[in-house]
């Protein structure tokens, strides 16, 4: 076929050095290194999710057998009770304290983010508040607990769900402020200009254009904060304390799941240890549900 008259095709045999250079060489150092690194990043990615499944497996294997409605209707058993019991009071207590924390932190955090990104953007004040919020997010939760103890518990005269909720709010606040500020910054400047150009006031621009557009990522941040708060233990030990009975109100000491896990996991009794594992399982499930719900909300938008 060398009689092919086409002058543009330079027909070189496949054994020529030029073509050899283009062929795959499975044993060259570059190929080997490439395969090795691909494998390495895959293993590292797997390592990142192994802890989650390990934790899930552990809490299910330890506490899965205790899953029943009893958990939510019964009170924690005393030390000498070898069978049965639940943590209905702690479950409701967790919902109460996290609810109080959310009621404080969500509106406060979102409004603070609106101030930082819409009204004071680029000013020195905004920079400082943003920086201090980051500092706050780094404060250990036990320190926040001590703070809530001295400001709320000591002044209101006792341990209470409100004091616990306050401590959780302090922990949730920086997460919400940071994620909401980032969410608002993602709203295109053109949207704001369009609204202002139509004669919207600043408030109308934020309330009707910017906030709706930023809502999905803000919700994600809120869910993150709620998940973090529902697992906190240290700040609740000082504030909500614990109680083996149903709470009489938000100004009374209140049982929470995380403190129940802390108390029961360290006892020598099998019944209590199982309940601690079941409590952990419920906590993980609560956080998982919150994450999945927020995902669904974001997807639907």
């Amino acid at each position: 076929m060398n009689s092919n008259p086409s002058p543009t095709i330079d027909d070189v045999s496949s054994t020529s050095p030029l073509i050899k250079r283009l062929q795959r060489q499975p044993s060259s150092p570059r190929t080997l290194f490439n395969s090795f690194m691909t494998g390495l990043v895959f293993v590292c990615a797997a390592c990142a999710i192994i802890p989650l499944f390990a934790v899930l497996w552990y809490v299910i294997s330890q506490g899965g057998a205790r899953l029943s409605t009893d958990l939510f209707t019964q009170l924690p058993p005393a030390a000498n009770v070898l069978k049965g019991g639940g943590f209905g009071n702690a479950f409701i207590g967790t919902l109460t304290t996290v609810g109080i924390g959310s009621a404080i932190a969500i509106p406060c955090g979102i409004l603070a983010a609106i101030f930082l990104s819409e009204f004071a953007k680029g000013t020195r004040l905004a920079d400082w508040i943003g920086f201090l919020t980051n500092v706050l997010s780094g404060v250990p939760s036990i320190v926040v607990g001590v703070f809530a103890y001295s400001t709320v518990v000591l002044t209101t005269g006792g341990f209470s769900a409100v004091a616990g909720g306050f401590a959780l709010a302090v922990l949730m606040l920086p997460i919400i402020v940071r994620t909401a500020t980032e969410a608002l910054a993602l709203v295109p400047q053109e949207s704001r200009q369009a609204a202002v150009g139509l004669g919207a006031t600043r408030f109308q621009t934020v309330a009707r254009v910017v906030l709706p557009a930023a809502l999905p990522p803000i919700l994600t941040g809120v869910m993150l904060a709620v998940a973090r708060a529902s697992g906190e233990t240290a700040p609740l030990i000082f504030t909500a304390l614990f109680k083996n009975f149903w709470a009489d109100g938000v100004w009374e000491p209140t049982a929470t799941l995380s403190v129940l896990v802390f108390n029961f996991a360290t006892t020598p009794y099998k019944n209590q240890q199982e309940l601690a594992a079941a409590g952990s399982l419920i906590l993980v499930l609560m956080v998982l549900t919150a994450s999945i719900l927020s995902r669904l909300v974001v997807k639907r938008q």
Partner: protein
Amino acid sequence: MATSTGVSTSTIISSKDANIYYGNFLAVRDVTIDIPKNSITAFIGPSGCGKSTVLRCFNRLNDLITSFKMRGSIHYHGQDLYSPEIDPVAVRRQIGMVFQKPNPFPKSIYDNIAFGPRLVKYRGNMDELVERSLRGAALWDEVKDKLRESGLALSGGQQQRLCIARAIAMQPDVILMDEPCAALDPISTLKVEDLLQELKEKYTIVIVTHNMQQASRASDYTAFFNVEQTERGRTGYIAECDRTEVIFQNPQQQATQAYVSGRFG
């Protein structure tokens, strides 16, 4: 203050010796121009000469920039737009704006149009106003069956006409357009230009454009902006302002001649 002095009754916006600063930097100097009512005035000129800056002064959109300062005066119906008793929000409701990049809200087509009227708690029939505005922007026939769909699902040209419809829905007096066709293909551009001719029956239009043909085809008056290098930066100014045919066929200045014939810019 409220009465115009020595201004022709057909002038709707009148700028006199306006100097526009960003901080200490003089961005545009000595802007003196009258915008005639029910006409299309085009701003042309090389990049960075302050066309958009001047346009944004007409509805006080520059107020959003903290370092912005204006010296001189801009009168609207004889009223000084920059006097302290003027509410910029109210000004923007009278003097609408269409931007370079189509910027519909991430809402339905209907809600995009109804956005402005809802701001002022419009009491009339909203469905009717939406239809009238969309017809006014020559978009009704294309979207009448999908008013509940997102405005972002439209093509670029349709989005820009949606933005024009949104501006019309406020029933403004003046519509400012900042390179409204810059992001559009030639067919959509022609549609918007045809639309401009219909719109000027009811509104006064000021349009910034980089497209010389557009200015010569669509506008009645043309202001040619130029820019000069000073020791403190580039300062824009209006080099020449006249009826469009004069600017394009018999300009008084060399620079205008050079620019409209495509020899610089």
